[in-house]
């Protein structure tokens, strides 16, 4: 089925998520859609598959204009989407999941569905037990189930959203095999990814999005170099930065392995010294958060040892990490960092961790007032934190930090802040650094990583590259690593 997207626009509030996107995809081809987080790939695909409505533009299937009100209509017209986290039902069995949403009458036709399932399994060489629970399957197997389900519903255009994120290498090879087979059968495959390697291996044509716009379309053969330039823009360059003499080791990780239900990062060895800044680069969700939380003692590593100032900290509560001068500032400032409903004074009282029973309100008020001025927070002591802007919330979080910290762990320290607040946040952090605080921060902004880090850890595709020296790394190299190119060699 031939697909044409013409002048698609989509706004979310002030954000222009899709800005005049035009795209034509012939049937029987695998078309890559490449871009960073927030480039607008997912929005475009959700529009195509009926999850969200476009503001303007046209979608043509084999030349006929369509407008889907919901995903079910899209499927009926032959457009199916496989989500990064497959949209299935973990508590149900494979067969039940396969049956759910089929439009073949009132009574469940289990025998017929089973035959269908077996037919597709044979065709692609999948091996799923029909009575196994979906929750017991790996992400790769859940993808296989979704592929079969969408095909059984008559999908002719299949959209794969970041399908290689949570799956193992053998499963990835199997997936690629399946995709090629599908294309041979005349299906139209759209492969959404941020991984250069995957795009190179699989796609005949690649369209690159950046900040909601199409920045270019390349046809096979293309070079990774072309793609990186289209993905990250031309403006990347390294800048000079002041050096600080490094002190004693603060944090030490020995063969630490962190994992959650969908991602497992193998042994990480790292020594962070006092005064050092380490940037964690990578597409969001590649394990940076897991890693930071493990360093703060909020999640337990699966194996390995975490040391703070020479003391083994595994299974110690966050309180002890705090006592040893390590602190974690999460990306969800309001959700995890602050307490909505409490005002600034109350926050400062809580952060002091005082042992007194009664609160000395006049003193607390004065103290809050000084901090507000010191950290130039736009607010008064009685301002509730949820009423502050993002930049002022981040300032408040920094103002809550006690002096003399050994280690600050930050997740997206400047996300959503304007330039002034960004500069201010970094001036605060760098100032603490000159007094010996080590800083670990995760950021999706390559410029930020290159500008402030001494060393860089790249998280990509379930792996962590050996720490890079920021001075010897170019934005280009970093972009390639983030996109998963060259990670294999570095392991």
């Amino acid at each position, binding site marked *: 089925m031939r697909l044409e997207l013409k002048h698609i626009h989509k706004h979310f509030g002030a954000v222009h998520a899709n800005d005049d996107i035009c795209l034509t995809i012939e049937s029987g081809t695998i078309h890559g859609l490449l871009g960073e987080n927030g480039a607008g790939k997912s929005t475009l695909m959700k529009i195509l598959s009926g*999850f969200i409505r476009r503001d303007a533009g046209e979608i043509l299937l084999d030349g006929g204009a369509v407008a889907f009100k919901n*995903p*079910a209509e899209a499927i009926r017209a032959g457009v199916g989407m496989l989500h990064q986290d497959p949209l*299935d039902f973990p*508590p*149900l069995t494979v067969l*039940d999941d396969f049956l759910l*949403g089929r439009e073949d009458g009132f009574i*469940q036709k289990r025998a017929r569905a089973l035959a269908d399932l077996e037919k597709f399994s044979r065709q692609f060489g999948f091996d799923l037990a029909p009575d196994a629970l979906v929750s017991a399957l790996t992400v790769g197997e859940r993808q296989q189930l979704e592929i079969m389900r969408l095909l059984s519903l008559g999908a002719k255009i299949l959209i794969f959203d970041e399908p290689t994120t949570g799956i193992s290498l053998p499963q990835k090879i199997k997936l690629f095999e399946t995709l090629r087979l599908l294309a041979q059968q005349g299906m139209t495959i759209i492969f959404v990814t941020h991984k250069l390697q995957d795009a190179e291996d699989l796609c005949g044509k690649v369209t690159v999005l950046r900040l909601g716009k199409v920045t270019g379309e390349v046809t096979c053969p293309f070079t990774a170099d072309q793609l990186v330039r289209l993905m990250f823009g031309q403006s990347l360059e390294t800048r000079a930065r002041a050096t600080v003499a490094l002190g004693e080791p603060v944090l030490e990780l020995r063969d630490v392995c962190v994992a959650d239900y969908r991602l497992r990062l193998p042994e990480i060895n790292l020594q962070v010294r006092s005064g050092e800044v380490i940037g964690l680069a990578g597409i969001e969700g590649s394990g940076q958060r897991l890693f930071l939380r493990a360093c703060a003692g909020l999640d337990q590593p699966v194996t390995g040892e975490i040391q703070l100032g020479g003391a083994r900290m595994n299974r110690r509560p966050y309180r002890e990490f705090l006592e040893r001068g390590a602190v974690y500032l999460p990306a969800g400032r309001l959700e995890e960092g602050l307490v909505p409903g409490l005002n600034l004074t109350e926050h400062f009282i809580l952060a002091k961790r005082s042992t007194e029973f009664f609160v000395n309100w006049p003193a607390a008020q004065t103290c809050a007032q000084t901090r507000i001025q010191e950290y130039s927070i736009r607010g008064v002591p009685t301002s509730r934190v949820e009423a502050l802007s993002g930049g002022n919330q981040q300032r408040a979080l920094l103002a809550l930090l006690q002096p003399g910290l050994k280690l600050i762990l930050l997740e997206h320290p400047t996300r959503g802040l304007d330039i002034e607040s960004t500069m201010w946040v970094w001036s605060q952090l760098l100032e603490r650094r000159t007094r010996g605080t080590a800083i670990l921060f995760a950021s999706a902004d390559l410029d930020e990583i290159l500008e402030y880090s001494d060393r860089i850890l790249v998280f990509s595709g379930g792996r962590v590259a050996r720490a890079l020296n920021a001075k010897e790394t170019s934005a280009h190299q970093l972009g390639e690593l983030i996109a998963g190119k060259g990670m294999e060699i570095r392991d």
Partner: protein
Amino acid sequence: MDTTFIILTFASVLAESAPLVFAVIGETLSEKSGVTNLSLDGTILLSAMVGFAVAFTTDNLYLAFFAAMIVGALVASIVAFSSIILKLDQIAVGFILTLLCGDLSTFFGNPYVRKPGPAVPHLAIPGLVEIPVLGKIFFDQNVVVYLSVLLIFAAWWWMYKTQPGLKLQGIGERPAAAFARGANVNAQRFLYTLIGGALVGFGGATYSLFVKLGWSYHHTFGIGWIALAIVIFGGWHPIRGAIGAYIFGGLQSVSSFAQSAFANVPTQVFQTAPFALMILALLFVSNEALDRFFSGSPWSRRVWQSLRGTPPGALGTTFEQE
């Protein structure tokens, strides 16, 4: 103890658990779709009162049960509207409705207190009642009891054998995924909450028109709370839920026998024992230590898994299309 006695006991447990069965199945349907209707105890009181009042004034049982179902559906519609449309907290709304409906039943029920009124007539099924043992238990009852047993299997059949039933499970587990497969999540939730409420209302009328005839202050004795607990005990499965209801009914009759056997123990002990035992049973089916214990061998895990249920994944949450 002779066999007649045992048969009679089973028959009475089956009969007296009927209101509980209606309420449990109704609430299971509603929660399976993702909406907790916590107002159960109030709904049962109010529908029991309305059912009796209508029967008392019109002498028409059909009308009485219909009115009780309308009451149940109306209360449920408030829960559905406030949680699905207004996105209010289901627990808070349900709790307030419990109190409100309880008080309304006292207020409007005042003229009917301790009045003799109509009852559901006994109706043995000719032929089937002759079957040895089972006939006396299952076919020597009234229409309402037959309906309660049929409802269990109807609900099971609907949920596990039909396409709409499968969709119902999907809506409660992962509304976003159900939506992707063509379900109109909020409309369906509304519908199931109403049906569930109507069944609860039917259970209320069953209480005042059959199990404990008439009307009095707080006539149904906290049965709604027990129904909520049994839904959890039953792991949101209609047949297991019904078994829970019968176990509770059984405990009640055991305690009334025990009361006569141990005359020196205060009677309150036996009246409250079923409630305490129900809590113990709940602890038993949702205990992590037991989880670990039973996960030792594959078959013990299988048996254990079938015993304990997990709540629908999206229970108590709201759904909005992007």
